[in-house]
């Protein structure tokens, strides 16, 4: 089939998006500074002002960290933290916290 190389090429191009790029184990190793406020498990923040992260959607966490890094979402503490993160760090941290068990869930249907 003459189309095969083209199809393979297209699949290759898609694969980075199709597979999660974050490494949860690497994210755990980078999470010490996050744990200071969000809790070691990501589910026991230091106060009610600080969000729980455990079990949040991976792509949402990654988006939020990128928004803090760019300043699209303004927060003094998170802006400073996210400013130090590379794309891979963000993806790793998002993978780690998304994989933790916590209280977060969808709103129960009424």
């Amino acid at each position: 089939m003459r189309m095969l190389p083209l199809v393979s090429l297209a699949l290759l191009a898609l694969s980075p998006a199709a597979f999660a790029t974050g490494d949860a184990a690497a994210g755990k190793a980078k999470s010490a500074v996050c744990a200071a406020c969000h809790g070691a498990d990501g589910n026991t923040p230091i106060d009610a002002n600080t969000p729980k992260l455990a079990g949040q959607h991976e792509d949402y966490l990654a988006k939020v960290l990128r928004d803090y890094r760019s300043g699209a979402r303004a927060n003094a503490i998170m802006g400073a933290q996210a400013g130090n993160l590379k794309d891979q760090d963000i993806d790793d941290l998002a993978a780690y916290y998304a994989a933790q068990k916590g209280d977060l869930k969808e709103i129960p249907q009424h």
Partner: protein
Amino acid sequence: MSRLLISLLALAASGLALDAHAAGNAEAGKKRAYTCTGCHGIPGYKNTYPMYSVPRIAGQSETYLVNALNAYKKGERKHATMSAQAMSFSDQDIADIAAYLSTAK
């Protein structure tokens, strides 16, 4: 116990009472939060343009939810749908919704 200490304790207690009064009512919040379930109650629901998962907010920290809704209301946090929703809420609505969501089982 000195009178001063008693007065101070009474003052502290009245401060706490005010705080408790401003706190949200989870029952009222549950009614208000019906609209929220349209996106935040559907597993796997996605925001579009850009595409990302709508966050899980049930079980979230109460004050964080209050702050998030106020930030949308004031335009400090930008999201067309969330701003439109938040602008329709009073301070009491926001407190009630946060009280419900943070404890939703």
